């Protein structure tokens, strides 16, 4: 059982748990496990499935005490890349589409105006060849900002990924 406590200790060290707190938790755990063993209670009966995953056990205990940040749940960790991929794809498609619209823009609207002058009413028809352009520019701008945000999310996501445990 000391193996289990030692693996927990190693995980706390890796997570940056201050030594006095890690020692306190390790001592409590070791005492409880010894007492359980003396009473014929197996570690599995006492700790449940945690006994097979000391790293997760140690991390969740430290996180519950507020010593280290809460590890992301597996469900969230799995879901996040899909959401990020979808967001990035949407932003990229919007950039491409708005750029194409700007490049090959045709008049989307025709504006007709009329006004009255002292000499009499005159009517003029104004065709705006770039009536839709402001909308496309705004779309392009938003899409570029979204793409930049997605890039930042990818970068911070790869930074916060925990290092792979040695085999």
């Amino acid at each position: 059982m000391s193996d289990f406590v030692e693996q927990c200790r190693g995980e706390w060290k890796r997570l940056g748990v201050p030594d006095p707190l890690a020692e306190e938790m390790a001592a409590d755990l070791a005492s409880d496990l010894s007492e359980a063993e003396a009473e014929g209670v197996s570690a599995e009966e006492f700790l449940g499935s945690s006994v097979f995953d000391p790293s997760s056990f140690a991390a969740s205990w430290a996180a519950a005490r507020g010593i280290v940040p809460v590890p992301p749940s597996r469900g969230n960790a799995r879901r996040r890349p899909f959401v990020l991929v979808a967001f990035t794809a949407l932003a990229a498609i919007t950039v491409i589409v708005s750029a194409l619209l700007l490049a090959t823009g045709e008049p989307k609207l025709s504006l007709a105006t009329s006004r009255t002058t002292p000499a009499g009413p005159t009517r003029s028809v104004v065709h705006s060849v770039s009536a839709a352009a402001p909308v496309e520019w705004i779309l392009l701008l938003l899409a570029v900002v979204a793409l930049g945000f997605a890039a930042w999310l990818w970068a911070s996501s790869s930074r916060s990924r925990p290092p792979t445990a040695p085999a």
Partner: protein
Amino acid sequence: MQCMVSESRRSQLLRGVLDLCLLAVMDEGPAYGYEMTKRLRERGLSIVGEGSIYPLLGRLERDGLVETYRAASNGGPPRKYYRPSSAGRLALALGVSEWRAARDAVDAVLAPVKVEVAS
């Protein structure tokens, strides 16, 4: 298969009230981690399964629902004892009330169900 489903349901049911159970057993008298599991086991609650009581005790401590102190156990090394704080006692009272309301509502739904166990 049936046994696994049953275990999973039991585990899920317990997960929501395990903090209350811990507060209740330490309200009987200060206790350290393993001592609490013994008190629970004596009442037929052999807990854990999904984890252990330590993260839960850690959360109760972080939330200020328990107070802790170190003292020597019966001839053994000093142990960390837990007891409910005043906020913990209040949380226990509220939690028990919620649990009873939920239990009664579920009972009302499940009571008419006739359970037949095939021999």
